[in-house]
């Protein structure tokens, strides 16, 4: 893959309530680069700095020191650029359905594009396209967002950010509280947006299965530091370290670690598809031999 950096974070530090007795370092010397079209996962225990990091990337929070560079320009170099960063880096918070407020789904999705000052036709195009990505029908667009089911509301809220057509889309636990079908739908919506726009996705998640399946790369935050930055296959080889950081590893990975202990020569695996192909090859190799 041809890697083209879009968002660079350099020596980022952030201190909450600096200068008061409640002073608290939320991020320390965090550096990494996100490339165009990449799907990056962020994992870390509660309080590891994940939420703070997200809010740094679109300029909601200003770093105490360090830089956030979007497409080669520091997002804090100019007021206009900071505002631009809000639109170019889309942020979907946890339980985003609680931010819906308009009378109709259409108007709610249009809120972001309207704030960008786009023309009416462009807003209309974006709303319809965003609705398409998340599977909201024409009829639902005219409905009140409050009449939809929980999973649908969540998708409308995500569409509201997608409609700004951000080059980087950051999502904080987009699947929290949904059933397996709802989870799968949201993940495939996100994936289809990434493919269509060559957008960068950064997804914070507690579900190791989800990040294992979806992402090209994982950032592991621990105690306000960036502890690991590597592809899932590599991150999940550090099973014990992850457990010590209060994180899980996918069940399939655990099974394969047990198999290794039982003396089988198997690679590290983190999705069911990989596991099936390795196991069936092993079994068949044996049958033929």
């Amino acid at each position, binding site marked *: 893959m041809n890697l083209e950096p879009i968002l660079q974070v350099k020596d980022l530090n952030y201190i909450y309530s600096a200068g008061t007795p409640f002073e608290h370092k939320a991020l320390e010397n965090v550096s990494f680069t996100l490339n165009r079209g990449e799907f990056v996962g962020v994992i870390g225990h509660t309080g590891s700095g994940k939420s703070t990091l997200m809010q740094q990337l679109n300029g909601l929070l200003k770093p105490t020191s360090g830089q956030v560079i979007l497409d080669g320009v520091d997002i804090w170099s100019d007021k206009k650029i900071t505002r631009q960063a809000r639109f170019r880096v889309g942020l979907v918070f946890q339980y985003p359905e609680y931010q819906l*407020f308009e009378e109709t789904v259409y108007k709610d999705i249009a809120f972001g594009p309207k704030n960008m000052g786009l023309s009416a036709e462009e807003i209309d195009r974006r709303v319809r396209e965003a609705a398409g990505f998340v599977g909201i029908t024409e009829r639902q667009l005219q409905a009140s967002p409050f009449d939809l089911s929980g999973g649908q509301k969540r998708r409308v809220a995500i569409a*509201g950010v997608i409609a700004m057509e951000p080059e980087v889309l950051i999502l904080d636990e987009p699947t929290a509280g949904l059933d397996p079908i709802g989870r799968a739908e949201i993940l495939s919506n996100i994936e289809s947006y990434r493919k269509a726009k060559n957008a960068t996705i950064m997804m914070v998640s507690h579900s190791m299965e989800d990040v294992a399946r979806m992402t090209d790369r994982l950032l592991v935050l621990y105690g306000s530091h960036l502890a690991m930055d590597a592809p899932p296959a590599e991150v999940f080889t550090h099973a014990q370290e992850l457990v010590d950081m209060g994180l899980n590893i996918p069940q399939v990975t655990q099974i394969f670690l047990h198999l290794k202990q039982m003396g089988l020569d198997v690679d590290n695996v983190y999705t069911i598809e990989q596991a099936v192909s390795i196991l069936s090859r092993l079994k068949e190799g044996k049958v033929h031999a």
Partner: protein
Amino acid sequence: MLKDITLGQFFPGKSPIHRMDPRTKLILTVVYIVTLFLATNWFSYGLMMAFLVLCIKISTIPPKSIVRGMKPLVFILVFTAILNLFYSDGGVELVRIGSLAITTEGLKRAFFMIWRILMLISGTFLLTYTTSPISLTDGLESLMNPLKKLHVPVHELAMMMSIALRFIPTLIEETDKIMNAQKARGADFETGSIIDRAKALVPVLVPLFISAFRRADELATAMECRCYQGGEGRTKMKLLRFSRVDIRAFEVCTCLVAGVVTLAAFGL
């Protein structure tokens, strides 16, 4: 940030003032305020001041935090001082600006008025700093109990107050979250005319209200599940009981009131 606002801040502790029954503290705070208005001169003010300093000392509350609490009131203080400074007659004229004159009497009045307000506020701070909101509510409920005979819903009011106190931090946090979420969609709360800014709040207020109603609904169900049926037949884990400290406190305050009244009677 919104989170930094402190409302009725409580400093946990084990001082005699902390251990006092909330009813004692409520009654004595009222007595203290009334006495402040009886005080009229240097001697009685001095006596009140000595009492206040003693109480703060006993409470182990850092005086700094009381001073910090005064900050938002600076405007009111300055305003009161100016009013008293210019609108008092009598005494020797010191400065004259047009029709407004500053006299020695005005200076004296302004000084006493500020002193009085500062003592009044410090006294009430002492109450809220040393009493947890819940025991304050308990104390109020208990003191207002006789009003039940007049069909005043005392228990319900107290319950409402304590639930409000419980949910203030939650709703503040929620407001912060929604504001951030809308900012991420390009909402702008900082620029534009007053009307623009008021309009900009709609995307925050609508979700906030909806969420508050949802919370209220869920909380009501949860309370019902825990057998809540109003105040009837309800008991309390912590019973309010007057102890030695309370008796001492009443004694000291009686002396204080007697002192101030005597001084006033002698016109001192």
